[in-house]
């Protein structure tokens, strides 16, 4: 019997759990140890951005059971919105990020109104089609988006804290901004999936017809989950534009949209809240380590992915949980144990 996300025995209304505290400590201390372990600061930025994307994506993919294969589009929309805001409205960090989230919410909400009445494979197909439309538009509307080259020279605006202003042009400073945002978002997502709203999403995954018969407006919840995950993607996109100092259509391609699915699944997003986090970390580390040995690192990553789908669709989190299950202590119950002080 495959474990599911809804097996978590403890239902908390806590915003902060021991896991989140550990995660926050790791994130905030990362600049201190990333160089000694042989990595570099920029990969920390990439990982943090993609975790934001992946956590939001898993609200839809893992929790609601809606398999979007076109989510790269909203990351791209966020990136372009951030860039266009800096170029045409004014150089502002908050403004740019807000523009990214709002633009992605509009794009996601628009698409969601088409797809939220669909399920199964038709849902996946529609998301692919819409993803391609956005990708295509980004390439062809070159007077807005810069075509295949994308928007270049996007500035990294300073963070204004009222009394002082922080220069984000240095990667470490930018990393801290993203890490803090990520911690807030992790707590928010954790709270959301354990809220009544989150439980309805899971009910829809388990049996959509039954959820509708209980009296929930299923399509509205699907719409909300889709739009919410698009907003996460938009925020990630805005941060990505800032990190890359550019925005380009490549992130919207089917290939990239497929990669986020792979990351979430490899990590175990189907069975564990932390699956997407694990998946993103594994992907980027694999890219750098395998990539330093061979040009064809995606071949090995792809083979690993195929093997996981065949033998352990629960992903790495499922593998870890399986190790612990023998002792009668599933990994997913650990938060409960820790909370009870055992």
């Amino acid at each position, binding site marked *: 019997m495959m474990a599911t996300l809804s097996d978590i025995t403890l239902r908390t209304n806590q915003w902060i759990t021991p896991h989140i505290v550990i995660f926050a400590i790791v994130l905030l201390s990362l600049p201190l140890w990333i160089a000694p372990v042989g990595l570099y600061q920029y990969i920390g930025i990439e990982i943090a951005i993609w975790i934001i994307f992946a956590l939001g994506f898993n609200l839809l993919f893992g929790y609601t059971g809606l*398999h979007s294969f076109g989510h790269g589009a909203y990351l791209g929309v966020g990136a372009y919105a951030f860039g266009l805001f800096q170029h045409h409205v004014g150089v502002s960090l908050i403004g740019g990020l807000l523009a990214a989230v709002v633009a992605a919410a509009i794009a996601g909400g628009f698409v969601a109104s*088409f797809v939220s*009445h*669909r*399920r*199964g*494979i*038709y849902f*996946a*197909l*529609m998301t*692919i*089609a*819409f993803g*391609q*439309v956005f990708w*295509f*538009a980004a390439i*062809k509307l070159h007077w807005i988006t810069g075509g295949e080259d994308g928007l270049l020279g996007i500035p990294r605006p300073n963070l204004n804290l009222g009394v002082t202003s922080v220069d984000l042009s240095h990667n470490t400073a930018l990393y801290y901004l993203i890490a803090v945002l990520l911690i807030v978002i992790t707590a928010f997502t954790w709270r959301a999936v354990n809220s009544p709203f989150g439980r309805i999403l899971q009910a829809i995954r388990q049996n959509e017809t039954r959820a509708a018969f209980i009296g929930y407006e299923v399509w509205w919840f699907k719409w909300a989950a889709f739009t919410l995950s698009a907003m996460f993607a938009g925020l990630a996109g805005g941060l990505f534009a800032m990190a890359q100092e550019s925005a380009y259509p490549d992130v919207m*391609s*089917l*290939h990239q949209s*497929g990669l986020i*699915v*792979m990351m979430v*699944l490899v990590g175990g997003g189907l069975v564990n809240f932390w699956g997407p986090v694990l998946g993103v970390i594994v992907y980027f580390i694999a890219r750098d380590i395998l990539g330093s040995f061979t*040009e*064809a690192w*995606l*071949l090995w*990553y*792809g*083979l690993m*992915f*195929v093997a996981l*789908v*065949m*033998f352990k*669709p629960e992903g790495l989190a499922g593998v870890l949980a399986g190790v612990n299950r023998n002792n009668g202590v599933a990994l997913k119950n650990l938060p409960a144990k820790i909370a009870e002080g055992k």
Partner: protein
Amino acid sequence: MIQFVPHIINGLTLGLLFALIALGFTLIVGVMEVINLAHGSLFALGAYFALAIIGGGWFGDTAFGAWWAALPVALRYITALIVAPILAGVAGMVLELALRRTYGKAPLYGLLLTFGAALVIEELIRLGWGTGEQSLSIPHAINGAILLGGLIFSKYKLFAAGFAVLAIIAVWLFLEKTPYGAIIKAGAHDGEMVRALGFDLASLRLLVFGLGAGLAGLAGVIMVPIWGLRPHVGVDVVIPAFLIIVLGGVGSFWGSVIAAIIVGLSVGITGAYAPAWSMMSMYILLILVVGFRARGLFGKKSALET
């Protein structure tokens, strides 16, 4: 009105080619209810095999290689047209063996597995043939242009469209006029019962998947002289194929053929007036149709919806 005719004929030709591309995909999804996202990569693989056969790259500087290179292009082309799809079919069979573990689970897993396989095949192609753009030589007899009623047409495109018609009819006959189609279709719905009736479902599925992959490879060999060849071609191909299946309705053979022709016409006509947006028109078409008809034009209820 008369200036419209070439666009319509171009669109129809393109539609038939799209139908050929989607054929293997239709076969696999219709009979086995598996979405084969590696379809495009098998298409590319078939084309690269043909490249190796026609160019003689595999035989190197041996005496056989020299003899082979001296043969007329037509002969090498025909050999490629037969051998390359078979090789792609074998690759498809290997994929089917891996895919067996996902039968009976949610359709998502088949989708994911074939997506991973697509990535792997694409990387293997990059390793084997490099990342550059390649082209395939075709026999002189079907090269060049032809004048029909005062209009110029590419001979090769007409040849390819004719070939597509033949392939469509052959697959339809296989599905409707032989018992295999019915058995495999029944197997997708109730495998236990089909096995109880004494059919060897496992080898039938292997056969169908091999056939579907072979058709993908065949489409690759046919299409590459028109579209050019790069490792990434798989993605460019799997999307239209995918789209056509959904537009026509999953599980409907003629639905997908008709959808392919509609898509061909819309791409052809858009291409005449706004070339940059021609490929976009098919996505808009899909969204319009599926937005109103959940199962596409001719779709029936399918196991893939749960």
